[in-house]
């Protein structure tokens, strides 16, 4: 699987039932299909989907368009249910999938 540079911010630990904020930023140009006079045409290449699973279920999904800024940033919340990995999967135009994990310790 291809590599991607992502920074995922989670609290180090949380109490069971606590609502935790999740922040994630990933390095990606989110290339729009630019075809303006004087510019070299570039095909569209964006991350179009981010899926987050945690403790056996999908907890968050985001469908992205070229209207999302380069190096897409997103913030959402999830309830701490058990110690485990939050798995982040980005899908890119052309079919590439990038995957990163972040551990949440629940006390």
């Amino acid at each position, binding site marked *: 699987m291809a590599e991607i540079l992502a920074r995922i911010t989670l609290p180090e630990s949380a109490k069971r039932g606590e*609502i935790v904020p999740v922040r994630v930023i990933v390095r990606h140009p989110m290339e729009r*299909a*630019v*075809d*303006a006079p004087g*510019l070299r*045409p570039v095909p569209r290449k964006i991350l179009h989907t981010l899926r987050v699973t*945690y403790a056996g*279920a*999908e*907890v*968050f*999904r*985001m*469908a*992205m*368009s*070229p*209207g*999302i*800024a*380069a190096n*897409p*940033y*997103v*913030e*959402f*919340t*999830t*309830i701490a*249910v058990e110690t485990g990995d939050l798995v982040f999967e980005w899908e890119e135009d052309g079919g590439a999938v990038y995957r990163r994990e972040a551990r949440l310790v629940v006390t």
Partner: protein
Amino acid sequence: MRPLPRRTMLAMPVALAATRAGAQSAPEESFEAAERAILAGRTPIAGGIEIDMPPLSENGNSVDLSIRVESPMTTEDHIADIHILSERNPFPRVARFTLSPRAGRAEVATRIRLATTQTILVLAETSKGQVYRAGREVIVILGACVEGG
């Protein structure tokens, strides 16, 4: 020659962008059509959504936007989808967030591109099929169209 009305002037970069986009891909969905498709015949409820976005942006390449929707976020009654629609970008559907009761709160934030001064519309669908609707105007000095980034 009479000067062009301000409204026409403001619409020009978008019209150009639309022409370019149209030349290379399938017919584009309009802002109105996108909203109609999401509503699917339902009448939206005004309010219930808090949108936080700077009223003026120097640069449309990256504009902070955060959204909070009031909801108990229970299995029976939670926000299932939040849509961000842009009135004057080349593509009206900017993003869609899909949540579950395990989110705990219906609260998301991201950074968007804005082609020009316009209204950003947020539609939030509940698990019961209701739709909340709210909009925010944003003034953009330098649009995100061709400047890169």
